[in-house]
């Protein structure tokens, strides 16, 4: 039937490019492999992973990183969407400007923010000191206390426009007559927002949060470029640590084990997404 013929290329590519390498990664995780040697470990391999000294830190960083980034992207995205939903001259220009961070390639955003964060000679510290907010320059990217949060801030800046666009489109699906009717009934703007707008936007909010969760959890470029996972490996998240293990230390077995854990964790989240998707499709 046409169906299979049409769909076949995509399925074939899926198997060759994704399923097969994933399977190989699972296999590789049972070994200890370096550039020059290979040793079978079997299930003992997962003992190694469990006891790996970096696992708690990488996991914790990944969670903090992802949750903070998507939460603030949500807030900022929603707020800017509300703003852009008003009509005023210059609105289209503003919308174009707001998109810029999302369009900027990740590595470039990382390098530019490195300049901004430069402790002695960067503008952020300069303005903060001029405004009296801090007295000593802060070493944003090289102080283990701040480094992760500094990159989180950059990630929020970089990614929020996506949320803005989604929520803007979502705001436009709110039925106007419903809002007008509630105004006649004396509802305040706050009440309109909380009881009408938000519930109507629920599906889009849920989807956006889920998409940004997955993309952020896997986001390699910013941390790699801004801190390299440092200082002293304190800002590593799963993707950067897997890369570090594989291509800087050549410990392919360890890298695969972390990769498997990353994948399984996200799989759980994906199942949640699919469940929600289906429920929505059924209700249409």
């Amino acid at each position, binding site marked *: 039937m046409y169906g299979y013929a049409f769909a076949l290329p995509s399925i074939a590519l899926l198997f060759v490019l994704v399923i097969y390498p994933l399977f190989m990664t699972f296999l590789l995780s049972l070994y200890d492999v370096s*550039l020059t040697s290979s040793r079978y470990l079997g299930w003992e391999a997962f003992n190694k992973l469990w006891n790996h000294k970096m696992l708690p830190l990488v996991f914790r960083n990944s969670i903090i990183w992802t949750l903070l980034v998507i939460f603030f992207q949500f807030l900022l995205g929603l707020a800017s969407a509300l703003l852009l939903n008003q009509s005023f001259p210059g609105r289209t220009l503003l919308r174009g400007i707001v998109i810029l961070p999302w369009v900027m390639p990740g590595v470039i955003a990382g390098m530019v923010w490195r300049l901004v964060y430069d*402790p*002695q000679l960067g503008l952020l510290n300069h303005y903060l000191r001029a405004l009296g907010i801090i007295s000593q*320059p802060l*070493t944003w*990217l*090289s*102080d283990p206390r701040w480094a992760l949060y500094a990159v989180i801030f950059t990630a929020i800046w970089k990614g929020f426009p996506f949320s803005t666009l989604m929520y803007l489109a979502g705001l436009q699906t709110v039925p106007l007559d419903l809002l007008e009717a509630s105004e006649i009934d004396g509802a305040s703007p706050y009440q309109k927002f909380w009881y009408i707008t938000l519930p109507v936007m629920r599906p889009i909010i849920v989807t956006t949060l889920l998409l940004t969760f997955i993309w952020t959890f896997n986001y390699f470029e910013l941390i790699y470029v801004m801190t390299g996972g440092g*200082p002293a490996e304190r800002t590593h998240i799963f993707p950067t640590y897997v890369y570090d293990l594989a291509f800087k230390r*050549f410990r392919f077995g360890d890298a695969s084990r972390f990769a498997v854990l990353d994948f399984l964790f996200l799989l759980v989240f994906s199942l949640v997404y699919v469940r929600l998707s289906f429920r929505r499709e059924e209700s249409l």
Partner: protein
Amino acid sequence: MRRGVVVISIVTLAFLLLVANLAGGQEGQKITLNVWLMKQAEVELIKAQEEALQKFKELYPEIDVKFTVFPYNEYRDKLLVAAAAGNPPDVSVVDQIWNPEFAAAGFIIPLDDFVAKSEKVKKENYFAGAWDSALFQGKLYGIPFDVGVWALNYYNKDFFRRAGLDPEKPPVTWDEFYEVAKKMTTENQWGTALWVGKGDAIQCITDALIFSNGGSVLNEDFTKCTLDQPAAIEAMKFFKKLQEVNPPGEVSRTEEDSFQLFTAGKVGMFWYGEWGQDTINARAPEMDWACTNFPKPEGGESIGTFGGWNMVIYEKSPSKDAAWKFIEFWTSREINERVSSLTPANVEAAKSFLEKKRRFPDIIFKQLTTALYRPIFPKYPDLAEIQRNATTAILLGEKSVEEALKEATEEIDKLLNEYYSTHR
């Protein structure tokens, strides 16, 4: 219909382009020599390289040289991966500290036979410290290409004047250095800037202090760590003392950040390699600056640490003779001078290079002749990391100098034992 033709021809063209690129070079009578180098930023240098390459072609028309250049941060990784996968280049430069690693892994070949037969490449032609850095278990595994020394003492004469000191009399000893730095330090400017950063470079500074005080990192045959000896302890105590006269944040600062503090006029003196002169000229063309020798302890010598790059030939190369010819050419007196960005390793070329391109050439030359290289150990990066952690702990005040060095010595001894018990 016509649009279809256009589309098809574009697609065909693109396809041909792809195929052409994938097909690679041509076979034939020529030998293709793959040479991997570090990325050069200066346009002049790139031009000089092209001209040198032309000359080489005239000398050896049957050898076709292909350069590939890499930025520093991925260079070692790409080399290791290629070598391990069995398709390394024929020739490459390697950082001095990677030489033992590559030799121990069997990726590169000993060059003693080539040297014996060669007229141009002889030990006397190169700086002793650089030549010896390529030795491993008695054999020579690399020919020095260019060198640098950590460190010269750069100083800003205005700082001296403001502090009421004579700008023509920079400090010579450790005590003098400290005193001068103290006089320079006020609310928002400092005598000098310390740094640790994330790379290997900090060991160059701490090693230089230790060397100057007559100490060393490992013993003569690189089997035992000697960082817990009095010479090293005194050196690190001096280093820690300098914390008082430097801007806060030294542990996370890199050398680049710190040098920028110097060029921006925030610190009066700074220890850096001779290659920094170009940077000062670009960033602070108005500054009245000078260089002098690295400070020495009372009764000691001013000894710096060698940095630099050696040229090596890979075991898997099918054209080793051609590779050797290239190395002879590239490190020869006239060519070496023109194509290095750091100071040439060829002594005569270095003299000429320094005269032409650097201020204070005599001081730099002297430092290059007395400088010592870092320990020759295949797992040097791990050793460097232990040293760096100790330096960090000392600066953060987490451990006393004696404690930190004692623990580092124990860790390094463990590392050495582990390695030597499984490789010999």
